[in-house]
């Protein structure tokens, strides 16, 4: 079910070329243009229009509903590319997918087809979940839909801090449909503003924000707005279930956006430190700076491993997305926030003096990125979701139970992905997390083909993962009383998941004697963050990563996928076996 006419690789490459061609002075994707819009808090309409003309919207609509979305990794890779240029543009344009996804999951086929048509013709769709007084607590929502006497529904109440609430023509709204509320007390409605009588809705003023200043972050209030019967998405009472499943997909997309920002941060810091001289030596060659750059490069590769495995898991380990998406959304934006903060220290004072002022661009990126860790459920919300699943994760890990075929597909970057089936999404992973449960198996394979130092690192990751699960098994809590130390365990779980992701990817793509640098960088970074003692010779790999980073031509990005090369022997084996 991949797109029939073009391969995902081709379309992502074409988008990269388009973005590059629109990045020159005065053009809509130039850093100066985007910085000016940000300063003026103006929506980047022209940049979004170019993405429309490119056809990016078609990738928000599944193939079966008339669009081009077959392979999730393709659309997420494209959002990563847009995020490198500007997160305001990416968050604003990508919002339409979040607006529509509930209909893809739970809507009638005819409703989905109609929505697909509206989107491909240029309609923006928003998704209104949160309310002024309730934040992430969706079950506290007060916006209410009640049955109208003459059929249909009457919608009342206010949704606030909603991306694109004002600009969108269609808004997916979560509303209370049973007075008592509860997980079956809410339903989703696709509200078509153009069909609402005047005076039955009003858009709220744009809210000034710390980052993504040009985005339409506003709200919408309904005043007994009459909705036709077919505005209901799925069944009455299915709203929370549908949204939780939708977030399994969109949280993974957030990780992709975060990686785009990370790509740009690393590139800006590399070019700045390479160009800036302290005496006759570029800053990037100074030991401390070099080590910091290498640490950032390793951190980004580790986050990239999670993002890559997560977006492939949408297809290959669909039933495990309650774990995978929570890890991706909690880990990747936090990791990138940390990378950005540390790199900012490197170029801070010098950036202020530079003629092109890279500091200015960097500071905008830092502000813009901060929101990614918060929207679609903050890191805390996602860690809480992980902790709720600890007992099951522990059981699956101890039993050595995992989905072997799904794991091979999720971590074999060149294996064709099976079609995505939304009915395989589950509120709770039945199999725990195959990526982590399959770690021991991958470590055994590494032992057979890797150098002794690499094999030793992987053994330590395995030890740390085993110890962590013993600690996770001890966590017991009464309802709504998650102990604080469980959040530390969740963070360590994310690191083990990340290291395991990197390991699986390496095993499936690297021949014996192949390059080990990127994987050693990932494992050294993960072990350091896990509090494991990493010695000086092991840390030297970070300098290798730094040197590779600064030796690349300006303006180029190298993602983890580029390190994984073409289909290797292990990959072809899996592909024919499945």
């Amino acid at each position, binding site marked *: 079910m991949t797109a029939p006419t073009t391969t995902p690789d081709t379309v992502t490459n074409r988008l990269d070329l388009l973005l590059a061609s629109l990045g020159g002075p005065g053009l809509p994707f130039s850093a100066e243009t985007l910085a000016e819009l940000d300063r003026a808090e103006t929506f980047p309409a022209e940049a979004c229009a170019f993405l429309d003309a490119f056809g990016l919207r078609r990738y928000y609509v599944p193939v079966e509903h008339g669009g081009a979305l077959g392979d999730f990794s393709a659309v997420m890779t494209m959002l990563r590319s847009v995020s490198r240029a500007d997160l305001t543009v990416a968050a604003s344009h990508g919002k339409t997918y979040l607006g529509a996804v509930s209909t893809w999951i739970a809507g009638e086929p005819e409703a989905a087809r109609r929505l697909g048509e509206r989107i491909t013709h240029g309609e923006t769709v928003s998704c209104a979940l949160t309310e002024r007084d309730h934040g992430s607590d969706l*079950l506290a929502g007060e916006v209410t839909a009640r049955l109208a006497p003459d059929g249909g529904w009457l919608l009342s109440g206010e949704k606030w801090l909603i991306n694109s609430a004002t600009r969108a023509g269609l808004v997916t709204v979560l509303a209370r449909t049973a007075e008592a509320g*509860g*997980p*079956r007390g809410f339903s989703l409605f696709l509200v078509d503003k153009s069909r609402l009588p005047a005076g039955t809705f009003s858009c709220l003023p744009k809210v000034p924000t710390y980052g993504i200043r040009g985005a339409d972050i506003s709200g919408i209030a309904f005043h007994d707005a009459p909705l036709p019967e077919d505005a209901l998405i799925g069944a009455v009472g299915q709203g*929370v*279930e549908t949204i939780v499943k939708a977030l399994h997909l969109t949280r993974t997309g957030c990780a992709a956006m975060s990686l785009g920002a990370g790509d740009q941060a690393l590139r800006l810091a590399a070019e700045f430190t390479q160009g800036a001289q302290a005496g006759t030596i570029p800053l990037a060659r100074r030991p401390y700076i070099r080590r910091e750059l290498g640490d950032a490069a390793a951190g980004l590769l580790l986050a990239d491993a999670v993002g890559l495995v997560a977006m492939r898991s949408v297809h290959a380990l669909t039933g495990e997305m309650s774990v995978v998406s929570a890890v991706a959304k909690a880990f990747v934006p936090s990791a990138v926030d940390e990378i950005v903060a540390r790199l900012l220290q490197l170029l801070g004072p010098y950036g202020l003096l530079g003629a092109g002022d890279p500091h200015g661009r960097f500071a905008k990126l830092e502000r813009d990125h901060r929101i990614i860790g918060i929207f679609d459920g903050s890191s805390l919300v996602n860690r*809480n*979701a992980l902790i*709720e*699943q600890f*007992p*099951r994760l522990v*059981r699956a890990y101890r039993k050595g139970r995992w989905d072997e075929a799904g794991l091979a597909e999720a971590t074999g970057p060149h294996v064709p992905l099976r079609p995505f089936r939304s009915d395989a999404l*589950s*509120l*709770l992973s*039945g199999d725990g997390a195959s990526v982590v449960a399959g770690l021991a198996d991958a470590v055994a394979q590494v032992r057979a083909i890797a150098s002794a130092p690499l094999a030793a690192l992987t053994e330590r990751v395995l030890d740390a993962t085993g110890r962590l699960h013993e600690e996770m098994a001890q966590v*017991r809590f*009464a*309802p*709504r009383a998650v102990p604080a130390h469980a959040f530390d365990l969740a963070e360590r779980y994310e690191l083990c998941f990340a290291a395991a992701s990197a390991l699986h990817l390496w095993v499936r793509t690297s021949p014996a004697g192949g390059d080990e640098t990127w994987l050693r960088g990932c494992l050294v970074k993960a072990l350091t963050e896990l509090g494991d003692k990493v010695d000086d010779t092991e840390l030297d790999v970070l300098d290798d990563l730094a040197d590779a980073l600064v030796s690349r031509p300006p303006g180029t990005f190298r993602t983890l996928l580029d390190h994984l090369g073409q289909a290797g022997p292990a990959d072809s084996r899996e592909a024919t076996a499945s």
Partner: protein
Amino acid sequence: MPLPDSGVETHTVDGLRAWLTDCVATHLDRPADAIDTSVRLSDYGLDSLYVLAVAAELEDHLDISLDPTLMWDNPTIDALSEALVAELAQTHV
């Protein structure tokens, strides 16, 4: 906090009700006879996310795969016991 033992035949409404009562009592750290099986689990503070953990334990106990939303559609121990017996009957045909 050990979970109730599954040694006895529990695949009747009564048996499942007893097992679920013990299970919920364990989570709430209360005696089993303090649990009313006709009261909504949410009234005991088992919120929509937490109650999914009970679904996971049920799966292990009964050795079947359940849609976790079963917990949402049958909000009391009584309703859940009935639904599980129906579910088990289907699984074993």
